[in-house]
């Protein structure tokens, strides 16, 4: 893919990766005062603080520290957890499966909920149904994920007993059942964005000449929607999902914590609460790189699929 806009995207993503590495390295140095003291808290003994300073190499020149961080990170070594004494990478790998499963389930559920809602709204722009579909998700903007999760747990787990109240594991089927409510919470939190964008994309696709031509040929309305509008709106749908990946992943932090899912998100929240710096730093780096990667892939897919973008002007996100 030698398109100029694709190359520009790639270059920009590489710069962003470099900056993310620098920023995550500097995390520890932006704290006023002694970082080792910040990690251990005010009750720690001076000996413990200086031992940690030694271990983290905080007394060496900043540049040497950075090169050290970089060379280790490139080899997949993100340091050792202060709390658990295990390498951050192995902690992360051990906790990855539930998070990947949750993100996948949420993404699938988001698509399943978004497509019919957007289609319903786009069918008659300006109608009452369109208004309802556009207004109701807007209300979801103020729905806190943690509270929605608590309500779902009370209703569907405690009262009705349809789903477990939390946790993950056992057989794959049990895990899947445990993911239904968490995936619902995450999906609902990004639904306002995805429905809105897909609706616009569908209305635009419906305005296209080939749709008018199909209608003029007497193709039945639902068939027009399915064959012509849907297919052309599918690309924007994927793009919307890709670009919202960061928001989706951010919400899994909260959702995993509330549903006690032993994933990467819960690990990050716990590490923050227990002031386990290397874990926070390592996870922040990996998650940020994944988000940049997803966004880049999404942009490249979009550029690859839409010939107009290949040479043309930058489109606004």
């Amino acid at each position: 893919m030698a398109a100029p806009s694709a190359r520009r995207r790639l270059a920009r993503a590489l710069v962003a990766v470099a900056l993310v590495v620098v920023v995550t390295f500097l995390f520890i140095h932006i704290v006023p005062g002694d970082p080792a003291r910040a990690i251990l808290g005010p009750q720690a003994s001076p000996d413990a603080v200086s031992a940690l300073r030694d271990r983290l190499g905080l007394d060496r020149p900043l540049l040497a520290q950075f090169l050290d961080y970089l060379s280790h990170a490139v080899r997949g070594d993100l340091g050792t957890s202060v709390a658990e004494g295990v390498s951050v990478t192995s902690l992360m790998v051990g906790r990855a499966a539930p998070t990947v499963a949750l993100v996948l389930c949420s993404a699938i559920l988001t698509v399943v909920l978004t497509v019919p809602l957007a289609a319903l709204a786009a069918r008659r722009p300006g109608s009452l149904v369109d208004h309802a579909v556009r207004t109701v998700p807007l209300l979801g903007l103020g729905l806190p994920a943690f509270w929605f999760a608590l309500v779902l747990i009370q209703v569907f787990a405690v009262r009705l007993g349809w789903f477990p109240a939390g946790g993950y594991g056992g057989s794959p089927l049990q895990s899947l059942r445990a993911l239904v409510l968490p995936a619902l919470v995450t999906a609902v939190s990004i639904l306002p964005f995805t429905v809105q964008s897909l609706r616009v994309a569908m209305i635009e696709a419906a305005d296209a000449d080939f749709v008018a031509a199909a209608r003029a040929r007497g193709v039945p309305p639902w068939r027009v929607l399915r064959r012509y509008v849907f297919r052309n709106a599918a690309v924007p749908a994927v793009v919307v999902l890709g670009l919202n990946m960061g928001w989706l992943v951010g919400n899994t932090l909260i959702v995993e914590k509330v549903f006690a899912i032993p994933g990467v998100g819960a690990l990050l929240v716990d590490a923050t609460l227990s002031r386990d710096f290397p874990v926070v730093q390592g996870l922040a780096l990996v998650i940020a790189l994944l988000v940049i990667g997803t966004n880049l892939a999404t942009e490249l897919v979009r550029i690859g699929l839409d010939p107009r973008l290949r040479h043309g002007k930058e489109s606004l996100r």
Partner: protein
Amino acid sequence: MSAATLAAEGGSSRTAPRLNGTLVAAIAVLLVLLAAVLAGPRWLPSPTEQDLGNILAPPSSVSPLGTDQLGRDVLARVLAAIRLDLVVGVTALLVPLVTGSLLGALAAWRGGWVDEVVGVVADVVQAFPYYLFILVLAFFLGAGLSSIYVAVAAVAWVSYMRIVRAEVHSAMQQDYVQAAVGAGFSGSRVLLRHVLPNVFKQPLTYAVTDVVVVIVSTATLSYLGVGVTPPTPELGALVSDGQQFVTVRPLLTVAPGLAVVLVGAALALLGNGLSRQVDEA
């Protein structure tokens, strides 16, 4: 993709009366909430006053929502928390609204490397999921409101930058700007006197919707124990407090959560209605 496109999405003129209805409803709900928040303390006990002889009381004429585990009036605490969250939501956005708008105007106006630098920095900020960024900052700055202010200032400017950048870009194609440039006015004069007055409405209406995001994240951080610290009443902290009594007194968890939803819904509808008005004007 952000709440910007969500809020800035226009409707057809045929549906204008109904849109105004939403706007009126949103304003009415907000006014009622404001009245309750401001007048509540006159009729209700202090939100921090404990009464250990009257804990976890059911709703009564004295305490319409009952009392919590320390005998504090739940309604008084929820109202005080709504007030705090609204204040945080609005004031935390002032800095990113200004910095983001200025950076966006600058990026569009100067173009070239300035535009690229601002764009890459925005990409980096957005590479960190919102909650991750806020959590990491809370990690360093410690629990408390100041972390929330710093985190919002560090993250939220990106939306305003993108909105204003796009607006200034399109304004620069307009005849009135071309005329001002042609008349020989200085760049800063054209930008401040001609362009900015015509593009400031979009970031402002977006900010109304953005307040919802700040309120929800303040509540979330406080729920997790890294936001507002007790005994200050904050909606997320109230949910977290009430959670252990959810089987006995579900109201302790339900009321503050519903308050977030209500405030959020009213503000989201207000922002949406306002942006449609702006688009139609």
